[in-house]
């Protein structure tokens, strides 16, 4: 290609304003603004939220609601276990990330790490969905408060449908909002990485 050869000829002759040693020293003190840094900060926040909520949330909440006895320990222990497993997986993946790897390996490792945390968030959201379903069902149908009132009296099959609809709608709405915020946040951060990764991966097909 003729034009590319012309460029090749001039390529090494091009000069740029020289950056002084002093300016380089100053740069070393600056903070990185890389997308990956932000992805990792958010990953760590997600993992710690999972761990902390697993430890404290279920101890304090839902005391006034007469939930089945297994709900609280099941939620607490499973979320702690999941957070620990995923923290370990995240750390293991994170340590394999190396800027001196090939472009494809670096992208693969970042995306793998990101996928681990994504799985973790999806599991947490599923747990949350189960919790919301259980809490809503019991709040609406079981006797609560001083007068042992029941919020939703079921007297016919139609009532079951209405109740089912309300519960599913509210759960879907809460989870939907969480997912929307989540995917918007990561969609923006991961767009470039995913695009470049796909391009390299497609070559190997």
């Amino acid at each position: 290609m003729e034009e590319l050869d012309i460029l090749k000829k001039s390529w090494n002759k091009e000069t740029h304003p020289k950056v002084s040693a002093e300016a380089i020293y100053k740069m070393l003190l600056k903070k990185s603004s890389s997308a990956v840094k932000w992805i990792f900060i958010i990953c760590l926040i997600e993992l710690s939220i999972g761990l902390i909520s697993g430890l404290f949330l279920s101890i304090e909440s839902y005391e006034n609601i007469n939930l089945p006895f297994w709900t609280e320990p099941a939620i607490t222990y499973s979320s702690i276990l999941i957070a620990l497993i995923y923290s370990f997986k995240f750390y293991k993946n994170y340590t394999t990330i190396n800027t001196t790897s090939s472009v494809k390996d670096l992208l693969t490792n970042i995306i793998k790490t990101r996928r681990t945390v994504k799985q973790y968030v999806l599991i947490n959201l599923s747990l949350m969905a189960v919790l919301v379903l259980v809490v809503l069902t019991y709040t609406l149908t079981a006797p609560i408060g001083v007068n042992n009132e029941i919020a939703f009296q079921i007297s016919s099959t139609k009532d079951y449908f209405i109740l089912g609809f309300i519960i599913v709608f509210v759960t879907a709405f809460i989870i939907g909002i969480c997912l929307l915020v989540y995917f918007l946040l990561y969609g923006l951060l991961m767009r470039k990485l995913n695009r470049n990764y796909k391009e390299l991966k497609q070559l190997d097909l």
Partner: protein
Amino acid sequence: MEKELEHKFVTQLEKHQNIIHKVCRLYTNNQDAHNDLFQEVTIQLWRAFPKFRGEAKFSTWMYRIALNTAITLYRKSKRKIQTNDIADFHFKIKADEYDDTEEEQLKLMYAAIKQLSDIEKALIFLYLEEKNYREISETMGISEVNARVKMNRAKGKLKKILNP
């Protein structure tokens, strides 16, 4: 110890800085973005420097990190206005013999490269740096055959942009 390491790094970087400038040249559109990317590459190089054992040449090691930063880690700053005005860009070609037509061709060539994907830009960069297909495949993490295929496609795409 840290000071000594810092001094060694800065000396090497000062000497080989043109590699970073050339990567910035292909991946950015204006001087602000160029400076931003230069800084980000420098930070990433400094972070990786303690692990640099000198098995590869400093310059070879720089290629990888500079390209990885441009393709993977760098996020364009939203604070700055992104322009695509090649004429604004500060660069000079050493005053050998070149005429206006050649300069015009070079400008068009740079503008065409800017339209390529990040991966294609990396291949063109490595081609301009006269790297062989083994080095290109190692840097990119793809097979030599695929590097060749992708390179031909990138050149074809450039040709199409230049001669629509």
